[in-house]
C-alpha cells in the first residue's frame, strides 16, 4: 500500500493527478488508505479517470493485488453533470453511485 501511496503522490507532484482541495489554502487530498481500503480523490474528467486506472494497474502489477471491478464505486460531487458521470463510469467499468455505502464500517455521507 505504501508503494501505491508514493506512486499517487508522484503523479500529484507532476501535475498528472489533480487532487481534491479541501479549502482554498488547505491541503490537497488525493487518496486515503486504511490497510486495503482505499478512497481516491480526483477531478471528475475522463483524463483523470485514466490516470487513476493507470496508477491502480501499475500498483496491482507489482504488488499482486487485484481490483474487484464490480465492487468498486465512484461518487461524484454535486456539480458534475450526469452525462459526464455516466461517461466516466462507462469508460472505467466502475459503477456510479450517490451513496458510497460504508467506509471502515461508518457511512461517510449523512443525509
Amino acid at each position, binding site marked *: 500500500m505504501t508503494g501505491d501511496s508514493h506512486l499517487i503522490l508522484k503523479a500529484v507532484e507532476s501535475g498528472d493527478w489533480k487532487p481534491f482541495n479541501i479549502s482554498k489554502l488547505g491541503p490537497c487530498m488525493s487518496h486515503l488508505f486504511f490497510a486495503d481500503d482505499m478512497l481516491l480523490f480526483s477531478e*471528475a474528467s475522463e483524463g483523470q479517470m485514466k490516470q487513476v486506472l493507470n496508477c491502480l494497474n501499475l500498483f496491482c502489477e507489482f504488488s499482486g493485488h487485484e481490483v474487484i471491478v464490480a465492487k468498486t464505486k465512484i461518487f461524484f*460531487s454535486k456539480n458534475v453533470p450526469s452525462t459526464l458521470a455516466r461517461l466516466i463510469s462507462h469508460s472505467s467499468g466502475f459503477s456510479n453511485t450517490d451513496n*458510497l455505502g460504508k467506509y471502515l464500517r461508518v457511512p461517510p455521507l449523512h443525509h
Partner: protein
Amino acid sequence: MKTYKAPGRDGFQPFFYQSWWRVIGSSVCKFIRRILDDSVDVADFNQTCLVLIPKILRPEFLHQFRPTGLCNVNYKILTKLMVNRLTNLLLSLVTKYQSSFVPRRQITYNIIVAQEIIHSMGKLKGRKGYMVTKVDLKKAYDRLKLMGVGLSSQIVNLIIKCNEIASLQILWNGTPSANFAPMRGIRHGDPCIFML
C-alpha cells in the same frame, strides 16, 4: 507473547521460554544475534505448520478455510525484534495518507477525513467537479508480494528469507504433509504484517 499459544514444529510453547528464561535466556539471545549477523541460516528453524481452520460448518472449497501458521517461538522472537526496530523507521516511510499499522495513528482519523471530504463534495458549486473512487481490492495478505522500499540490503535479505525460505507443512487431521515453500503471502499474525 501469549503463554499457551499452539506450538510450532519444535513443540515448545511460549510457556517454556517464559518459565525457563533464567536457564535458556542467554543462549536464545546469542542465537538470535547470530541470525542478525547472518552467520546462521534462518531456514533451519523457520519451519511452519499450516493448519486449515474451516470458516463454515461443512467447507467444500479451499477458500472456506482460514490457514493459520504455527511458527516456532524462536522465529517469533526474531520477527518481533525486527518489527520493533522497523516501526521507528515506518513513520518516515509511510505517507500520512495511510493510517493502518502505524503506531499513534487511528482508524477514526480516516473516517473523519473521509466524511468531511464527501460532505463538502455534496455541496460543491462551480465549474470544477470532483469524484471519489472507492476501490475494492481482493484479499490483500493472501496474495501479497514483497517489495523493497529502500532499506539496507541486509535487513531486506533477512525479511525475504523469513518469508520465502520458510518451509511449510500442512497439518491435515493431525498428520503433517510434505514440505513445500510458499511463493507469496505473509503468515497471519506474523508481526511482519506491520510493514505492508
